[in-house]
């Protein structure tokens, strides 16, 4: 009975979303204040019903209700409670419900946070969000009902996929969704501006914090996923350029471009139609990612194609949401051209170039990801586009971007003397070149051109970011928090670049067979194999190896990689054991028993790999600083005289 209530709650939520979508938008068009006022209560109502549905599904997992097909497929009585919770979003139906819950959460946040905005504008934003929610919920109810019952409930469930039984992966999907679903807010702001037919600097100030919040969560979500892939899959890679990964990375790239373009629109009232297009594009890429992941048009996610209705439905959803916005854009954007000049050396141009490189990178990733599909659809053969392609192609826009970033941070709005700019970055440039060339030489005693370029770029970004704080610290001045956000985020990017370059240039990987009592050398470390023991987990059994990691004869730590076999889904799982430090990770994964007591092991030495995730975390921290700048709090606080649009104001 209770799961049916969940389904009923979803249906009610669809109804409320439609009300939230249609009435306020219509009311805004015909200037009916009563209809406009429906937006906030409807938003709150749909959130409550989606949350009820979500809670009911979670309760079904916690109470082992295997009469619900989704629970039976993805849970088991022996599954630890934490993973029962995570299993709610462990597969298609539940993760779609999470998608809806996250969107409903953002909608309520906008409903609360938009009290200071003009009523009509807020109603339009909420209306657009309501229509998107209605579409996603309809998709859930029509093709992917998580509450579907089994006629004969099994005695026990099929268990959650072992790969997903991991703390980082439990929180990765919520983070990721909060991020890329959050771009729906910027999208709704853009469509509301198009509906109103005008856009001013206030608009950009309202949109910026929402966009940055979403970006921050997406940054953390992607980093978590990458970290998980690194330690859980047992291969030691951290990014694979798989279509599913690209699906979350493209909104991130374009969202980053949007953040920068919004800065220009806010400060100078320029790039208006361009910013709108980016806001539409970023969320459209999120939707596109959802389509790619769930429709089975690319190899990565083939098995979802089991139900072609899903692919068709979500393509129609993508087509109508993005298509409508782009048609509106085609009709209205021409009225939003801003006039205003700037000079070749100015922050406007720096940010314009930033956008060119970020959009270029997004386009290249998108094109590469979809190219096999294009060829196949044209009957021109089957190809694979993988990491070797993306690694080359991604560098082409990224290297100039990193170079320009250090300059761009120090440019002034409107115009600036080129010589002044160069004088400002002289010292950071010198530091970057010296540190970037000498340190790797001393530390690793070899240096390739590409790694030198990468390390110098990373150092350059960090040094250029730190220039202002150092100068200010000496002069006892203070920076506004938004500025700190920019500096910290750019520093994070620099650390990330350093991590990526050093790891890929200097990692050591050894696959070897080893017997108890023997030892292997990796870099300056020695790894001794003491032996094996059997371990019993809550829902798995494992063989655990015991390895002593030594450096110069001193014991550093004992590593214990496992090879697990889960009781229900019996495929073997590799649990790597990692000793991590700032400067390096030592990674051991246990392979197969080779007979005679010998085991295959994979040993990896990964210098500075922590910088990759730490850098991403620092970037996200920069986003947090930027969003909490007080001028945004002022911008959305209730104001007596709305600036854009009032009920009396004819659009």
């Amino acid at each position, binding site marked *: 009975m209770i799961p049916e209530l969940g389904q009923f709650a979803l249906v009610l939520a669809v109804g409320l979303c439609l009300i939230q979508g249609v009435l306020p938008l219509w009311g805004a068009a015909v200037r009916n204040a009563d209809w406009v006022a429906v937006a906030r209560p409807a938003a709150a109502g749909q959130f409550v019903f989606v949350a009820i549905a979500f809670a009911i599904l979670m309760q079904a997992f916690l109470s082992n209700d295997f009469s619900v097909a989704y629970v039976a497929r993805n849970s088991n009585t022996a599954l630890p409670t934490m993973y029962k919770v995570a299993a709610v979003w462990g597969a298609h139906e539940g993760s779609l419900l999470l998608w809806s819950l996250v969107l409903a959460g953002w909608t309520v946040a906008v409903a609360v946070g938009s009290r200071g905005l003009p009523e009509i504008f807020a109603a339009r934003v909420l209306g657009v969000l309501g229509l998107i929610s209605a579409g996603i919920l309809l998709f859930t109810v029509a093709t992917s009902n998580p509450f579907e019952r089994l006629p004969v409930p099994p005695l026990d469930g099929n268990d959650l996929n072992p790969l997903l039984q991991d703390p980082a992966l439990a929180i990765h999907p919520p983070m990721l969704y909060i991020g890329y679903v959050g771009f729906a807010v910027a999208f709704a702001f853009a469509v509301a501006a198009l509906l109103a037919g005008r856009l001013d600097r206030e608009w950009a100030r309202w949109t910026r914090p929402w966009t940055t919040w979403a970006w921050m969560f997406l940054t953390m979500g992607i980093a978590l996923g990458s970290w998980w892939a690194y330690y859980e899959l047992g291969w030691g890679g951290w990014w694979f350029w798989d279509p599913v990964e690209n699906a979350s990375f493209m909104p991130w790239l374009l969202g980053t471009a949007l953040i920068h373009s919004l800065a220009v629109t806010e400060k100078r009232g320029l790039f208006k139609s361009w910013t709108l*297009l980016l806001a539409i594009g970023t969320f459209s890429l999120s939707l596109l990612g959802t389509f790619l992941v769930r*429709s089975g*048009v690319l190899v990565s996610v083939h098995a979802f194609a089991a139900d072609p209705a899903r692919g*068709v439905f979500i393509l129609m959803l993508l087509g109508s949401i993005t*298509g409508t916005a782009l048609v509106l854009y085609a009709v209205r954007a021409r009225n939003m051209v801003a006039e205003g000049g700037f000079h070749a050396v100015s922050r406007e141009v720096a940010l314009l170039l930033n956008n060119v490189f970020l959009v270029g990178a997004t386009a290249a990733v998108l094109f590469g990801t979809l190219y096999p599909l294009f060829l196949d*659809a044209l009957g021109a053969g089957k190809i694979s586009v993988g990491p070797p392609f993306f690694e080359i192609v991604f560098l082409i826009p990224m290297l100039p971007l990193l170079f320009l970033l250090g300059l761009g941070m120090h440019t002034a709005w409107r115009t600036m003397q080129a010589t002044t700019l160069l004088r400002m970055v002289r010292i950071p440039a010198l530091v970057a070149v010296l540190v970037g060339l000498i340190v790797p030489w001393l530390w690793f005693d070899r240096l390739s051109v590409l790694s030198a370029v990468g390390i110098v770029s990373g150092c350059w970004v960090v040094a250029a970011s730190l220039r202002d704080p150092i100068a200010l610290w000496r002069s006892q001045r203070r920076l506004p928090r938004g500025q700190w956000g920019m500096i910290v985020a750019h520093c994070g990017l620099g650390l990330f670049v350093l991590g990526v370059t050093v790891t890929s240039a200097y990692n050591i990987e050894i696959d070897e067979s080893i017997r108890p009592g023997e030892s292997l050398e990796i870099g300056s470390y020695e790894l001794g194999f003491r032996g094996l023991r059997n371990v019993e987990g809550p829902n798995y059994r494992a063989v655990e190896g015991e390895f002593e990691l030594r450096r110069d004869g001193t014991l550093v730590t004992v590593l214990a990689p496992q090879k697990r076999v889960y009781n229900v889904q019996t495929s073997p799982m590799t649990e790597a054991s990692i000793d991590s430090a700032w400067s390096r990770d030592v990674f051991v994964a246990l392979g197969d028993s080779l007979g005679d007591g010998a085991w295959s092991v994979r040993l990896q030495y990964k210098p500075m790999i922590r910088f990759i995730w730490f850098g991403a975390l620092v970037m996200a921290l920069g986003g947090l600083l930027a969003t909490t700048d007080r001028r945004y709090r002022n911008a959305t606080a209730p104001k007596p005289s709305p600036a854009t649009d009032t009920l009396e104001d004819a659009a």
Partner: protein
Amino acid sequence: MWRYLIPVLLFAGLVAFFARGLQLDPSYVPSPLIGKPIPEFTLPTLADPNVSLSDRDLRGELSLLNVWATWCVGCRQEHGYLVELAAQSGLPIYGLNWKDDTDAARRWLQQLGDPYRVTAVDADGRIAIDFGVYGAPETFLVDADGTILFKHLSPLTAEVWQREFLPRIAQAAGQ
């Protein structure tokens, strides 16, 4: 102004590609060997390891080459149909026993019936690589001069036989 139409036009093109893509199977990889002569091989037969089967034995008449193994679930599914097909069509079917335990393979044929004229044993999978095999069962249609006409991946059924094989056999016979 026309330039504001560019995004929506590009997007429409993309949606058209996706709509087409939904009808395709992205994981299906067509064999580059179609239209090429079968790879050379000489392998021991399952019945008697001292006797060998080679690619030359397949020439002379239209035949099927079926890649199978006892560990393969799909092979078990199609086996009944293969037995039926061998009896009905009169077409010679050659077996390629892929990376398998030969004793288990012999027992399998004893128990389930032997549709094959001869089964060759590819214990280390080397010849299967030459045939571009990546998932058993796979069935090749080979014409009289040893050219590969068609390759079917996944279990063979009466429906597949009607739809994919018969027209090609008729065409090969007509030439």
